[in-house]
């Protein structure tokens, strides 16, 4: 058998292969026109994978920014809450820092003795420097004493309220808050 003729029909023709070609060639494909239905649904190549990747990246970046913003916001709020206890002026939120500095409520004016100090804190907040906690660290004994003072103040306040209501002839409210704490 001529291998070359079997492979690519070159070289000396092989009689056996030629016979098979002639015989089986009668079964050869007879092309028919391809009838493509008008209603056939051919979808385009899906391009959503790159879009999905881009969306996922954008989502991750957005989430990161949001978390960072939220944590800085939380820090600012905590700092503002600690403000009256410390010497630092109170800050409302970082979203309106100018208002908290420029238009301070009357009740809080006492905490803003020096405008330069306010500005310095504002700059520090914007530049994201590590916020220093100005509140002193109290020992357990000091904390207990502080709690005692607060309870006493509440008790005095309640007693004064009671006396005021008695003087004005209003009905008595038999509730002195926090009385149980002092026994």
């Amino acid at each position, binding site marked *: 058998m001529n291998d070359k003729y079997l492979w690519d029909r070159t070289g000396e023709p092989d009689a056996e292969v030629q016979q098979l070609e002639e*015989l*089986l060639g*009668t079964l050869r494909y007879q092309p028919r026109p*391809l009838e493509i239905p008008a209603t*056939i649904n051919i979808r385009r*190549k899906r391009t959503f994978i790159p879009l999905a990747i881009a969306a996922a990246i954008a989502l991750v970046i957005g989430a990161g920014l949001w978390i960072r913003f939220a944590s800085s916001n939380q820090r600012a709020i905590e700092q503002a809450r600690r403000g009256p206890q410390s010497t630092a002026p109170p800050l409302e939120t970082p979203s309106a820092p100018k208002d908290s500095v420029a238009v301070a409520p009357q009740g809080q004016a006492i905490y803003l003795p020096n405008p330069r100090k306010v500005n310095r804190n504002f700059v520090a907040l914007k530049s994201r420097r590590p916020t220093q906690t100005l509140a002193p660290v109290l020992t357990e004994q000091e904390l207990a004493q502080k709690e005692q003072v607060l309870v006493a103040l509440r008790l005095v306040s309640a007693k004064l309220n009671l006396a005021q209501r008695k003087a004005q002839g209003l009905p008595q409210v038999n509730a002195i808050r926090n009385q149980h704490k002092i026994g």
Partner: protein
Amino acid sequence: MIEAEATAEMLLMTGTFRSPEIIEEPIEQTIVRAVLEGEHDRFGRLYEMYGPLVHGVLLARVPRDEVDDLVQDIFLHALRKLHTLRNPTAFGAWIAMIARNRAMDFHRASRETVEVEENTAVAKPTNRTAREVLDFIRQLPDAYRETLVLRFVEGMTGPEIAARTGLTPASVRVNLHRGMKLLRAKMGVTAT
């Protein structure tokens, strides 16, 4: 000055002309892209190119009466699923695989009704009909029968089979030779 111009002309005339290099993309890629962009009529070109391949793959597996309809079905299926083809240059291998799967489905669906027409003893080997020889080929292992059908029925050469099916030329060559050897043995055995 005149000499310089003459030299320049000479250089221009004698210099070999180099056209900008054009990288031609395979025709399958062009057609697939065009079809996916809405030119459905261009799919007919792929049908012309790969019709014999699909026909051969099916003829090696399913009854001849069913082959023509299945060829149409397979091409319509391929047209619907064309967007899933990742590499358009591998269109041949892709549609051949669809044809093989469809042939398996055909046998699965009509297992009870398909008659097996084989092992018929032939007294006169020289007067065998095409169908009889085809039956012998169908008794061979998958790889051999497909290659032999494409070679003898569809008239493709070895390199053409390799290019269409995505097989390596070496594999096709081996399949041709081993398949031919087995076919000859089978025909000789039944003839005696």
